[in-house]
């Protein structure tokens, strides 16, 4: 993959920060956008804009066609069975809230949900809320000392009582890649639980085939994969989606409405109340096209080789503690800390070098608490990052430590 050519497609990467060229290493929080996506969204507003599924005039028909076509693009992208399985949400967090509300409606007191110790709050809090409402038990799969899931612990947690397993596909802290296929086989052999994968970090970086993985749901965030904010996807198996109750009412999700009651539209619209973020969805469609042009195989290969380089580079920085999966293959995500240096000081000082990293608990507070760390600073690499970006990071960290110790 030719990263220097790719960089040219992202106008923001040309800018300077504090007099230094921008080194953007926070794609785990949000990715930058290529011209293709920016222009496509601007073109919709200039040429087609009209509300979808309503007007009987050309503009609305054009916008509706472009919007609905994104379901096909996304269906192919993750190899879903049908475009009816692609539900648009405003992001991954909304996706989990929708699933946690809908899938727990018929659960019984004492039924169990399995999450892991390293879940993003988006895949934790909605389940805590649902568990409180329906008196469910949440079990957490342990993370081992290699910063990977403890699979034998997972095995021991599974039983007929397990109704939902919801696990991160690629960790936004340790870069851990979950053994999704192994998990789905284990789940099927020991329970009838639904298997949900948090694809927020996984889908932007790796080829995902939902049918091969044997999962039931996938939550995706658009803005982490070159798309705009305010758009995400929940993919679910058609037969399960059809049996599920909607969570949000109004607008597009109805079939017939009476004063006393209403009936629902077929999937996917049953789950999409109100005017959808159709311009954002169209933007996401172009983001997928951009990734397809690179091929997800190449994107994945780039992530792997950049991770290997970054890992060896960062491991050579004196005093740097790295929270990162020890597996041969993992995501290009590094949470870091330095004894005696606060991560917020580090990220503020790195910013003076033009290096953008995130500091804090990265929405994974319980796991930070387990490691007895208030916070870490985190660098993530994406398609527009190269070895030089991590060279700059490593030398900037060394420079800043000198000032902060």
């Amino acid at each position: 993959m030719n990263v220097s050519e790719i960089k040219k497609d992202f106008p923001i990467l040309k800018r300077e920060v504090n007099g230094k060229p921008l080194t953007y290493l926070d794609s785990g929080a949000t990715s930058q956008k290529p011209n293709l996506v920016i222009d496509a969204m601007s073109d919709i507003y200039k040429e087609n804009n009209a509300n979808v599924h309503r007007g009987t005039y050309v503009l609305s028909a054009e916008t509706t066609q472009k919007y609905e076509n994104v379901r096909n693009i996304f269906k192919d992208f993750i190899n879903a069975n049908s475009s009816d399985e692609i539900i648009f949400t405003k992001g991954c967090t909304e996706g989990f809230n929708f699933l946690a509300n809908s899938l727990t409606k018929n659960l019984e007191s004492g039924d169990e949900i399995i999450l892991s110790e390293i879940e993003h709050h988006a895949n934790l809090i909605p389940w805590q809320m649902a568990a409180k409402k329906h008196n469910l038990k949440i079990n957490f799969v342990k993370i081992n000392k290699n910063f990977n899931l403890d699979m034998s612990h997972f095995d021991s947690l599974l039983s007929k009582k397990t109704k939902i397993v919801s696990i991160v596909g690629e960790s936004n802290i340790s870069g851990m890649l979950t053994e999704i296929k192994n998990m789905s086989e284990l789940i099927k052999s020991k329970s009838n639980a639904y298997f949900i994968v948090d694809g927020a970090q996984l889908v932007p970086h790796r080829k995902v085939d939902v049918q091969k993985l044997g999962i039931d749901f996938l939550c995706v965030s658009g803005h982490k994969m070159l798309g705009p904010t305010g758009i995400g996807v929940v993919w679910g198996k058609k037969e399960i989606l059809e049996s599920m109750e909607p969570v949000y009412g109004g607008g597009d999700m109805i079939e017939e409405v009476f004063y006393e009651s209403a009936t629902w539209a077929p999937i996917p619209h049953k789950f999409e109340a109100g005017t959808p973020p159709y311009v954002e969805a169209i933007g996401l469609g172009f983001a997928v096209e951009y990734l397809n042009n690179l091929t997800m195989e190449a994107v994945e290969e780039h992530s792997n080789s950049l991770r290997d380089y970054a890992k060896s580079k960062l491991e050579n920085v004196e005093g740097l503690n790295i929270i990162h999966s020890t597996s041969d293959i993992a995501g290009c995500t590094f949470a870091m800390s330095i004894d005696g240096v606060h991560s917020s000081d580090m990220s503020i000082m790195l910013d003076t070098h033009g290096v953008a990293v995130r500091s804090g608990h990265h929405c994974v507070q319980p796991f930070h608490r387990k490691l007895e760390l208030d916070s870490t600073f985190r660098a993530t690499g994406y398609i527009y990052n190269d070895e030089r970006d991590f060279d700059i990071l490593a030398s900037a960290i060394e420079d800043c430590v000198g000032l902060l110790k």
Partner: protein
Amino acid sequence: MSIQEKIDNYKKTLSLFPNPQEKYQYLIEQAKFNDDFPENLKIDEFKVNGCQSQVWLVPEEQNNKLYFKSDSDALIAKGLVTLISTIYSGETANDIVNSEADLMEEFELGVILSPARRNGAFSMLKKIKDFASGLTD
């Protein structure tokens, strides 16, 4: 020295440092001078919410004037809270409440003074003003 005079002094000092890195280094130096915060006061009551790091601000009243002790586990935040404590220490509750100085505007401190409502500096200032307003009629 009035609140505004103290702000003007800091403003003058900070303007001597042309780039953000030097300004932060100045804050770090201020933080290092501020080293007498009692460990037993690091309790929730004195914690400033809305900061990325842990920040504590403890008010004291002496002869109708307020004095503030402060600390943080991060150096830059500690430098900032040290500046803010110094500016408002030795002033009456009324003067603090009536001070309309906008630190975000006065100090060009880049990312650490962004005017977001949940920003650390905003919360530090609010904690000081809330305490002062509790003492005015």
